[in-house]
């Protein structure tokens, strides 16, 4: 009997199965409530941490969240995977530092301007890079960051070369913990702007076009979507936000080295975080950044500067790509749906109720079965097309 009711449920679910949107079947209030709790936790984080070290790790995770979300404007919406987004991070960081050093600009003005400069630089780069698709685009994005690494190492007079570049602190007289706290909030504010932009784009016609490109670029083009312009726009948004994240990092950390700013590893982290969290959901890259970023910081703390975190990264990337192509959010949603309300409702009824229900079901049994069988979508074809 248990089997019978199971299959009936599955058939019932089958009609809904192709329904998209991936929404959880949680009560309506739970989403805003959960969000409010999460926001409160984030805002209280600097007050809750035990020491400055954890706080600085929090700043790093927040900066990862910014970069992963920024990456997702391109990689997520259009499906163009860039492994070289560290290029924009580095350019934004160095731009900020150099503008302060050479023009004595107010640090945050330098930061703002640096992002806008990257925006302009990215126009020709985007036009060139977006001539290719798929694996070729990945290669082009990697070569871009490698070229910048060489240039920034070699051009010592301008960039400080391998000696690094010192970026003066914007708040010179602050103690370290206060410095971390302020930058934690600055990164969170930047992230909030990105998420808002993401939300606007996601529901817009522009966003619909970008998602169409992700699914089938030629088809989108054939329907009249100017795919090149759309991709370029997404690329520019993505690059600029990444640059602002880099600039913020420069102001926080105060010391830049081409090896770290223009590293493929940083670009790979962005990809991993975004894919892990899931690029189809507003909060996906952010969730991925919190998971991966926290794990990375933990590894650093426990095992020091070994290569272990690389192994971890590689394994995690493999797991995500193989088992959770849409990231943890949809995967968790599916799990919730499977384990959640349905099962608990079955458990809560007593044996008597079950018996009663089964008797009732038996009375209308044949009828219900018949309906269940033909309710599956595919079979509709034959039925009503005779006209």
């Amino acid at each position, binding site marked *: 009997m248990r089997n019978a009711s199971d299959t009936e449920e599955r058939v019932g679910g089958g009609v809904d199965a192709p329904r998209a949107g991936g929404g959880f079947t949680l009560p309506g209030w739970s989403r805003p409530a959960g969000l409010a709790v999460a926001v409160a936790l984030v805002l209280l984080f600097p007050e809750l941490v035990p020491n400055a070290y954890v706080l600085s790790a929090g700043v790093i995770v927040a900066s990862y969240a910014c970069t992963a979300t920024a990456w997702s404007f391109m990689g997520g919406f259009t499906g163009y995977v860039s492994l070289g987004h560290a290029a924009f991070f580095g350019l934004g960081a160095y731009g900020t530092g150099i503008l302060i050093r050479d023009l004595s600009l107010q640090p945050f003005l330098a930061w703002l301007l640096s992002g806008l400069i990257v925006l302009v630089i990215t126009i020709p780069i985007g036009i060139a890079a977006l001539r290719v698709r798929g694996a070729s685009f990945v290669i082009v994005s990697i070569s871009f960051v490698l070229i910048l690494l060489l240039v920034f190492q070699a051009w010592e007079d301008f960039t400080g070369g391998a000696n690094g570049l010192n970026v003066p602190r914007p708040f010179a007289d602050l103690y370290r913990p206060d410095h971390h706290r302020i930058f934690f909030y600055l990164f969170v504010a930047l992230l909030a702007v990105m998420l808002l932009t993401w939300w606007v784009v996601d529901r817009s016609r522009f966003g619909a076009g970008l998602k169409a490109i992700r699914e089938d670029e030629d088809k*989108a083009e054939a329907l009249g979507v100017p795919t090149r312009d759309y991709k370029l726009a997404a690329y520019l948004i993505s690059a600029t936000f990444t640059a602002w994240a880099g600039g913020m990092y420069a102001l926080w950390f105060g010391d830049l080295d081409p090896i770290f700013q223009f590293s493929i590893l940083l670009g790979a982290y962005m990809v991993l975080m975004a894919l892990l969290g899931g690029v189809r959901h507003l909060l996906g890259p952010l969730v991925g950044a919190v998971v991966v970023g926290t794990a990375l910081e933990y590894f650093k703390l426990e095992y020091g500067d070994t290569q272990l975190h690389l192994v971890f990264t590689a394994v995690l990337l493999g797991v995500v790509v193989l088992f959770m192509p849409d990231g943890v959010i949809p995967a968790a949603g599916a799990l919730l749906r499977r384990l959640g309300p349905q099962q608990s409702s079955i458990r809560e009824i007593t044996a008597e109720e079950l018996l009663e229900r089964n008797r009732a079901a038996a009375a209308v049994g044949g009828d219900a079965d018949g309906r269940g069988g033909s309710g599956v979508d595919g079979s509709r074809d034959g039925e009503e097309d005779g006209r």
Partner: protein
Amino acid sequence: MSEQTKPATGLETVRLTKSFGGVRAVDEATIAFRDGQINALIGPNGSGKTTFFNCVTGMIKPESGSVLFRGKEITGHPPHRIARGGIGRSFQLCRIFPRMTLLENLLVAVRPTGLRQLLAPSREAGAIERARGLLVRVGLDHLENAEAGAISYGQQKLLELAGVLMSDPDTIMLDEPAGGVNPSLIGRIGSLVRELNAEGKTFLIVEHNMEMVMSLSDHVVVFDRGRPIAEGAPSVVQEDPRVLEAYLGV
């Protein structure tokens, strides 16, 4: 459609050529299709029909020759521009956006102009209403929120057609609309084409299903080895010895 109110030729190609390696897939094809008609393009497998479609819609750049639409040269224009100019197309192997819902599939075809419209919500009431109307028309309205990848192949073909209609073209090019579709759906597609034609849409249909071609079209062009070898009314073309030869390989 009355013949006088429409310009005689809509879509036209002049010595259009495209080869792949040594193969001339389209070989100096010169064809003119009249506006307001249901035109069919038939020919044996590999005769270059799809390549011809791709050249006309800008998906492939032809090597030489030109494509004209209502007298204006559109050769080499990017596909989205040609689409926006009023030529819609479907693909031989049906192409839809599998991870979007049926409704979202149609909303992709809405064409915003200017930044404001670009950032306006995609699910806007007017667009949704139009999309729903088209889904009703192709008989898929009950699946509006289903994921497009989850519906049957025949339904996907109807969805693709609805998507093309959503972009409001006046010339519609269909590459094997009946291919891989069950007979009852073929009937639905055929009557839809007839209805739309009565509303003023021009059709250019590549099809192997001769029954459909002969019953539906006003004008048939027969393609062989990348160029037209015969054309005329269905009944005339059917009797043409060159057509029989090309098809039967006599």
